[in-house]
């Protein structure tokens, strides 16, 4: 088969069914491509080729015998190295946990393995999902395949870079303030932060208990739906796990946007904060395209971006400080500088600050829910700037808070980010769609309609075609 590395998970499954491709061939092709190109972008912290090929052989036998477990059977996946896999180190890209070996698979990994997915290895991230991109860590930062001199977004940097480089069709990330959606947008792929509690967080090293989410990343909306079908579900061992799930998240993907009501949160990137003009123009174009697809697009108003963002940062700083305080007291030099600063911030907050943030949160959830009485999906900015250079610490510090993702970690609504254009510098621009609680079906319906109408998902990073 040609262009094997750009096949989606859905296409790979179809090729297995028609015997045009086997899991061993697919996994070997992925491993070869990683071996040839990963030194340019550092997406992987560890590749376990031997285990992957062994798993591919098993999948091949099962599929050939007609025992197909589902659409991810035999599909290569990558895992952000903050999620436990039995017998493997979960380093969180940090010196602090270099030798921490996980005793068991996180439930989300167990679900992927039960569905027959083949784990290729562990992917790079920002240290503890908060500090990066950094050059003072035990591993180099992942880079953006569209331009290796540029930031790939984070914290799930390796997951997005691996997808954009054609190393694999599916990866897992985690998202506390936008860590799935930021790199997905910066690297021109797709990332979903599901409804809070839809995917188990057990076995995932926490950054902030009440903001953390696990989400799938892929190159097609259909693959996001297939992955969510597998990883979503109640986990009695996770106190933040939601009871009951819909499943069949791709059921409405072919229905198009006609008749849907889209609320455009324009004030986030016009009056609350001024987006880069290219970002703003691309968002207006998304609204126009969805309008031509038959959606009714209207402006809506949420609480101010700055207020939502402030609440998210207070909660994240307080909760992450509670997790890291002992290590920061005893081993401050073992953290990268960015992580040290961002987590130590929590030491300067009071108990009242944290409680006030949670009080605001309750009000903000109600405000977003109120807007959803009149619309089905929100159209929101993702990053307010194209990706800056990875070695420009000042630009990284300046652009880090210029984003509209964190509000939906505060409220827990599901949010999908995807490519919305290319900047003059040839870097991906992105949009974010946000849905009602547990209405990932409609969210993915809108994403798929935009994907088909825009065609951005067919663009490839130069040098990786």
């Amino acid at each position, binding site marked *: 088969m040609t262009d094997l590395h750009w096949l989606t998970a859905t296409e790979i499954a179809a090729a297995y069914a028609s015997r045009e491709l086997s899991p061993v061939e697919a996994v070997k092709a992925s491993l070869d491509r990683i071996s040839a190109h990963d030194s340019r972008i550092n997406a992987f912290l560890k590749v376990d080729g031997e285990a992957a090929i062994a798993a591919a052989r098993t999948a091949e036998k099962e599929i050939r015998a007609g025992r197909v477990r589902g659409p991810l059977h035999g599909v290569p996946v990558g895992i952000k190295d903050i999620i436990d896999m039995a017998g493997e180190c979960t380093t969180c890209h940090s010196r602090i946990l270099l030798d921490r070996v996980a005793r068991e698979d996180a439930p989300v990994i167990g679900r992927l393995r039960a569905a027959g997915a083949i784990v290729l290895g562990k992917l790079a991230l920002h240290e503890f999902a908060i500090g990066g991109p950094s050059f003072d860590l035990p591993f180099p930062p992942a880079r953006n395949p569209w331009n290796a001199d540029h930031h790939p977004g984070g914290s799930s940097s390796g997951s997005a870079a691996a997808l954009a480089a054609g190393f694999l069709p599916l990866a897992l990330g985690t998202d506390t303030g936008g860590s799935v959606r930021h790199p997905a947008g910066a690297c021109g792929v797709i990332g979903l932060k599901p409804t809070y509690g839809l995917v188990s967080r057990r076995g995932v090293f926490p950054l902030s208990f009440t*903001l953390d989410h696990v989400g799938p990343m892929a190159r097609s909306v259909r693959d996001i739906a297939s992955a969510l079908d597998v990883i979503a579900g109640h986990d009695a061992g996770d106190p*933040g796990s939601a009871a009951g799930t819909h499943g069949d998240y791709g059921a409405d993907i072919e229905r198009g946007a006609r008749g849907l009501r889209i609320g455009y949160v324009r004030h986030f990137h016009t009056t609350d904060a001024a987006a880069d003009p290219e970002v703003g123009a691309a968002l207006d174009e998304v609204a126009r395209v969805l309008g031509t697809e038959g959606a009714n697009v209207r402006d809506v108003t949420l609480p101010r971006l700055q207020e939502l963002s*402030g609440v998210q*940062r*207070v909660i994240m700083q307080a909760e992450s400080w509670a997790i890291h*305080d002992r290590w920061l007291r005893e081993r401050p030099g073992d953290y990268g500088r960015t992580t040290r600063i961002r987590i130590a911030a929590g030491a300067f907050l009071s108990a009242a600050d944290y409680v006030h943030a949670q009080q605001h*949160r309750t009000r903000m959830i109600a405000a977003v829910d109120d807007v959803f009485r009149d619309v089905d999906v929100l159209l929101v900015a993702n990053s307010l700037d194209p990706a800056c250079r990875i070695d420009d610490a000042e630009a990284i510090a300046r652009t880090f808070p210029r984003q509209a993702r964190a509000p939906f970690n505060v409220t827990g609504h599901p949010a999908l980010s995807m490519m919305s254009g290319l900047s003059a510098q040839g870097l991906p621009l992105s949009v974010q769609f946000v849905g009602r609680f547990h209405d990932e079906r409609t969210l993915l319906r809108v994403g798929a309609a935009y994907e088909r109408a825009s065609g951005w998902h067919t663009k490839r990073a130069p040098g990786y075609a």
Partner: protein
Amino acid sequence: MMQGKTHPSATTEVMLRARAAGLDLAASRFPEDIAAAAEEAARARDDMPAIEDVAAEPWPPMCVRGAP
């Protein structure tokens, strides 16, 4: 964040608060980082609006909703 810049605030009050939080080692080895952390916390706090109803219920801290 103001990485790489000198923080005049890396002095008395911030350092006292850092030490009160047990960050003596960090404060002595990385005073600029500790000052930057204090600024980050202040910015986040300042971005939050004032609380209008002090009796507003904050519990549970995150609402986990079951699928409809």
